[in-house]
Every structure is written in structure tokens, then in C-alpha cells.
């Protein structure tokens, strides 16, 4: 077909894996980020629903915790999928952003963004914050090593104790703000990266993204807040 290609192709055609083709190109990387991002969003959403059971009292949420551990195989596959997604996502995101830094070359002395949201311009930072948070958070409520008074399997207790400390509450709320930023733009951008955008759909998508981000943030934040104002206590 196009002479441009024929004339310039020195090496003999080589078959390349779909993933390879995606990973090597910037658009492909964004597609991978979108897909992994989707996985992460879904997890976070389910996770929020699970967590909200603290309002139903200790029995319910601890039972939920035991349920999760009931089938270790499932649990670990889930964890591995999740971990893989997070790693691929973070890796791609960081790599792309580093490329972008170079692409600008000399920085502008004066640059006035007009149309864009702060969230869209700080995806790396909100993302990294989330990364830090997740590490801290897993050590805190899953492993328990950074927890003041950790009791294996007693989610309700662990949660209430964690948010007994104002520092803990602050740490979590900051993370939730970062999450809000990240998803406010991220979920919309996800559709764009997957090519699911046009002049009719996109405005709806943006509303949906904003909405979901808000729901998730409020849903999560409700727990630490409920604990300090004493709605949820041991």
C-alpha cells in the first residue's frame, strides 16, 4: 500500500505482539493506562461499598472481612490482578509524563492555561500521592505494622482505632482529595483514551466522571469523619 512505508522498510516484516505494539506507542500506553485505570476504579468502588458496612456495625463488616478471606485462591488472584494493574498503570503513567517533560524542552517564561482543569495537569502528583497512600494503607489496615493497635481480622476495631488518631484521619482525607482529583479527570480521560468520545457523549462522560469521583471520595471520607464525630465507635 502506501509507498511511504514500502520504500522505507529496511528490515523484513516482523510479527509483533499486540501488547508490544501498544506498549511501544504513546497512544497504546494510554490505552493500557485506561484499561488498568478501569480495573482500579472498579476495585475502589467495590472497596468503598465494602467499607461502608462499618455503619452496619462490627458483626457485619468483620463477617465481610472473613468472607473475603474464605477463598484464599480467589483473594490472591484478585490481589495479583490488582497489583499488576497498579504497577502497569503507575509505570506507564510515570514514563509518559517523563517523556512529556522532555517534549517541552525549554519551559515557558509565561504560560496561561485557559481551558483545562487543575486536576488534568496534576495527574502524576495525585497518582503518586495515591501510590504512597496505598502502600501506607496496606501496611496499616491489611498488614497492621503501622497500626497503633492492630487486631487480625477485626476490621471494625482496626478502623475505629486508626481514626481515633487525628493524624490518621488527616492522612486518609488528604489521600481522598488526591483520589478525587485523579478520578475527576481520570475517568473522563479514560473514555477519551479508549476513543469513546464525541460531541454528544463527551459532556455526559465528564459529568459522570465528576459524579463518580465525588461519590467515591465522600463514600470513603465518610468513615474517618464518622469515627471522629463519634457516630462510629467501639
Amino acid at each position: 500500500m502506501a509507498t511511504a512505508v514500502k520504500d522505507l522498510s529496511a528490515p523484513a516484516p516482523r510479527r509483533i505482539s499486540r501488547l508490544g505494539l501498544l506498549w511501544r506507542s504513546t497512544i497504546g500506553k494510554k490505552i493500557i493506562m485506561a484499561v488498568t485505570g478501569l480495573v482500579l476504579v472498579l476495585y475502589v468502588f467495590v472497596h468503598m461499598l465494602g467499607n461502608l458496612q462499618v455503619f452496619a456495625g462490627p458483626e457485619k463488616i468483620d463477617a465481610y472481612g472473613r468472607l473475603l478471606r474464605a477463598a484464599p485462591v480467589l483473594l490472591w488472584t484478585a490481589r495479583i490482578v490488582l497489583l499488576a494493574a497498579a504497577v502497569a498503570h503507575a509505570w506507564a503513567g510515570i514514563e509518559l509524563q517523563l517523556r512529556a517533560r522532555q517534549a517541552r524542552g525549554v519551559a515557558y517564561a509565561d504560560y496561561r492555561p485557559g481551558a483545562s482543569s487543575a486536576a488534568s495537569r496534576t495527574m502524576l502528583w495525585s497518582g503518586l500521592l495515591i501510590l504512597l497512600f496505598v502502600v501506607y494503607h496496606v501496611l496499616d489496615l491489611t498488614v497492621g505494622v503501622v497500626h497503633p493497635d492492630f487486631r487480625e481480622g477485626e476490621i471494625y476495631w482496626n478502623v475505629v482505632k486508626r481514626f481515633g488518631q487525628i493524624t490518621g484521619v488527616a492522612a486518609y482525607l488528604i489521600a481522598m482529595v488526591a483520589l478525587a482529583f485523579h478520578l475527576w479527570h481520570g475517568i473522563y480521560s479514560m473514555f477519551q483514551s479508549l476513543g469513546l468520545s464525541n460531541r454528544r457523549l463527551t459532556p455526559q462522560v465528564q459529568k459522570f466522571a465528576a459524579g463518580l469521583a465525588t461519590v467515591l471520595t465522600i463514600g470513603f471520607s465518610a468513615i474517618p469523619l464518622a469515627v471522629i464525630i463519634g457516630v462510629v465507635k467501639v
Partner: protein
Amino acid sequence: MATDLRTAPPGPSAPARARLDARVPGGPLGSKWEQRRFEMKLVNPANKRRYTIIVVGTGLAGGAAAASLGELGYNVVNFCIQDSPRRAHSIAAQGGINAAKNYTNDGDSVERLFYDTIKGGDFRAREANVYRLAELSTAIIDQCTAQGVPFAREYGGTLANRSFGGALVSRTFYARGQTGQQLLLGAYQALLRQVAAGTVKLHPRHEMLELVVVDGRARGVVTRDLVSGAIRSWAADAVVLATGGYGNVFYLSTNARGSNATAIWRAHRKGAFFANPCYTQIHPTCIPRSGEYQSKLTLMSESLRNDGRVWVPKAKGDARAPGDIPDADRDYYLERMYPTYGNLAPRDIASRAAKTVCDQGRGVGPGGLGVYLDFRDAFQRLGRRVLDERYGNLFEMYERITGEDPHDVPMRIYPAVHYTMGGLWVDYDLMSTIPGLFVGGEANFSDHGANRLGASALMQGLADGYFILPYTIGDYLARGGLAKLDTGHAAFRDAEADVLARSRRFLEIGGTKPVEHFHRELGNVMWNECGMARSRESLTRALAALPGLEEQFWRDLKVTGTGEELNQELERAGRVADYFELAALMCQDALVREESCGGHFRVEHQTEDGEAKRDDARFTHVAAWEWRGHGPGAERPIRHEEPLVFEAVPLQQRSYK
């Protein structure tokens, strides 16, 4: 007897007063091009890549030619002055492109397009060329559509047409108001495809400053790299110039700032005859200049005249706001002078009328150089919605530039230089009087005679580039006789030396005024004396004034910087220097042509009702000027004639009363 300028030694030593032979093939009009293509010698495909062809210009003509020649396998070297081939001035064309497709079933045909073009050109174009143009017009639309040019479409998916420039049939194809842009991008993409394929070597930001002629044949060019300033020679077996029009000799025109005459003028100095330099088209509906600093004029589509009424106050210097002037005090002069056509009178007539009323001191706006184009009545008759559908984007464009909203105040318009029908003389094969030097697009003189019809320049540029030059150049190469040579040849070294010396000269003048100043002065002289209405007096005045101005230029010009860097002042200096020489030739040509035809209006030659009056007995010919030197003491240029014979369309006077 006709001297064949291909075999006769051309260039500076051309035979004096040769009667130019266009080498039009025999046979009936309808089969001439067929015939010519059959006579052509073909280049062995295996040898094509051994031939180097230089194409100067990446507009519709140059871009299409370079792409097509590259496709054929020739080794093409392509230059343009912009930073990208896509920015050639063709990009600015708005209205559309004609083609005799007869899709609207309104009785169009190749014959009719041919007839309209000949008549529109006021019987000063070559029948055979115009007929070929009409024939090729349909293939152009096919080609561009296949390239993906997004022409306007009907709901059924077929191509849409509109009528344009007073034609009685709808044969104009268009892509929004950006037809030129889309056609050029089509050619540009085809060109870049060849660049990627390696058949075309593209050199943007390179200005051709000299043509190199060896043994009477065009064998290369000398360019200046506009970024590094490097002067470099390029050898070739044939050279194509597609460098556009020279309207900027008037300083203010609708042309882009970069449009220039340097390439064709340098070729003219090397022996290429310059045909009908005085034929310039003035467009009636442009936005008037707002002050001294004005750098270019913007075209407003003529379609506005369908619903707008043109008027000026009856009284001299009536300072009232247009809204406050009652109809009783308004002079709708076009309707008054041309009852039948009224506001739709042809370009040249409408332009001259505007000048007349402004000369009477009744013009409006800054400097009294403008007339009203008023939509008041149309708004009342059709309502705002209808008009906005028709002209919304134009109203917006006007407001963006002037800050005035045509919904509230009438538009102000004034004529402006738009197109140059003159250019390097070419024969039927588009070859100039220098063998091996081909000229396409607005740069040559062909096809439009003394006046160009709307939407036919794009057609001509693409016909030249896609469908004529690729054949005729092949024929020229196949006929052989080209000695091997490279840029080591003395002719190249001399040319390079000349170019260097010239730019050094600009840098060393060390005067006090920037190039702009002299260009503006030159423009004023040309516009006032050699513009819309020309007379023996005005032209003699111009010819008297120009040398003095030119002498000042060479004495008082200031060009800063050096030649070894990006130096825009230096670029302009070279172009303006050439304009001075071209301007003199334009005035001479206008002076000798003792008749009025198309865009060339001599006040001495008009009918009692102000119509152009041709003198077919004396001037049914192309005037092609041969360079004889310039400046004090130089020989006067020689005026050659190519007689024009009209077999298919009988000569007739046009009347728009």
C-alpha cells in the same frame, strides 16, 4: 516568417522581433491535446530517475507538478520560501474551482466553459490552451476527490455546485470557504507521499535567486537557504517555475506577504520573455485600508453583492453616519450607471465605478477610500436569519477585522489588486522562450487573457501541475540533446557570485530607510498611475517617477544584519529591487497597449458609457517582452508579438448595460 524559439539560440541573444510561435498542434480544437500527447516522445521508465527536474514552488501548480513528476519516477528537487510547502499562497483561495462536469444538468459543457473563459478573458487568450484547460477541468475534480478533498456534497452524497463570478451555469466546486486550502492540502499530501518515497527532495525556506542557463537551456538554479543564508547551486535537466503572481508590486494587494516576482523576473533577465505584464485584475469587494501601516488587503467574497447595495453619499464630504443619510441623499451608483446588472456588474466595471466616485471626493471611511455595501434593505426583505445563513462567516470576518458589525452599520469596501494575468510567456507545452524552462500556474501568462473569471485560477494551476507539465517535460527530456553537467560548471559559479554580490550590495548601502518604505512608495505610484484606470499621462508620469524612486532605493536603503543568517529584511530587499524593474515594464506595456481590454483599462479607449473598448485590429495579440538591460543607458526591452486567432469563438464586444 516564424522563428522557432526552441531551436533558435534563445536567451539574451534571441532574434530581435521574432514572431512568437506557440507551437499549437494542428487539427480541430477538440483533438489538439490528444494529437499533441500522441506526438510526444516518451522517456524510458528505467531512465526516468536519471533525470533531475527542479520545481520551484509548492502551490497548486508546483505542488501538483512535483508530486506527479515524482510519481513518474523522475528525480525531483522542490523549493518553496515558506517553512512548509502547505503554506503556498494557493491556501488562501476561497470561492471555488470550476469544472465542466455539468452535474447540475444546466447545460454546461467543455465548449461552454471554454467559451466563457475566452469571452471573460476579453479575447486576449490563446484558444488552444483555454480549450485544453476546459477539457482537463473534469479530471481535476476526479483527482482531488480521490485524494480526499472534502468538497461540499448534496444529501444524496454527490458533489454540490454553485454558480460563481456571474456565470450562468453552476459549475463551481467548493469546500466551505476554503477551497484553495483543501485543494492545496490534497496536492501537498500527494507531494509529501513522494518525499517519503524519496522521489522528491523538498527544500522549504529556500528562495530561488538565479536561473542558470547553459548552452541556451535552463539547467539549474541558485538558491539561498533562508535560515542559514547558505547560497547553493542545483543542477537539473529541466526547471519548472510555479512561483505565483506578482500582485505585490502594488505593495497592497490580496496576495500573501511572501508572494513575489523574483523567480520569474530572474528568469526574464536570463532570456524568458514576459507576456502582458500590464494585465492585472482588481477585485471590487475588499476591506478598505484603515491607515498607513496597512500591510495587506483582505478579500470579501463577491457573493455579498447578490444582496448588498453599493452606494456613496450624493454630497461631497457628507460627514453624517450612514444610518442618518436618507435615501434621497444616497447615490446607488452601480444601479444608476448599469440598470440591468446593477450591483452585480463585473469585477473590473464595479471596481472602476468605485474609484470614480471616490475620486469625486464622495468616498467614505478613512481617507475617503471606500464605498458602502449596505444590507439594510436585504435585512428588511429577507430577515436576519436568512442573511446570516448566507453570509454569516463573512459578516464575522468583516467584524473581526474592522470592529464594525455589518448588522448595524453598512460594510465599507474598496477595490484591491487581486490577480495578475500577465507572466512569463509559454508555448502550448508551457515552455518559456528558454528551452527547458517550464512555467505553470499564475506565474505564466496563459489561459486567462486580459481578465480572469472567478474560480478558474485554481483550475489552471492544477491542470498545469497534474496533467500538462508531467507530459510536456517528459517530451522535452526524451528529445535529448542534454549534455551531462554538474554544479561545477562555470555558469553556476558565476550565478552564485552574482547572487552573493547582490546581497552584499544591499547590506552595504547603509542608508536610512527600511525596505517597507520604498515598497510602499512604489505601490502608491503603481496604484495611482497604473491601477484601475490608466492613461497616457498617468503612465508617462509613472515611467518618469519610477527611476528616481529606484535610485533612492539603491542609495538610501538600510538592511541590518548579515547574509549568513535568517534575515527577512534582506529577503524583502531583493524582492522589492525586482519589483522596481517589473513595475517599469508593466507601465511600458500598458502604455503601448492603446486599447482597453479586461483588467487593462485605458481611459482614452472607452465607449461613451464607460465600457472598455478593444482595438482588435491592432491588438489581437500577446505582447511578450524581451529583456535588454535596465537602468540609465540600458537598451529598451523588445516587444515581441504572438498573434491570436479566434476560429471557434468569433470576436465580439462585451456589454453589461
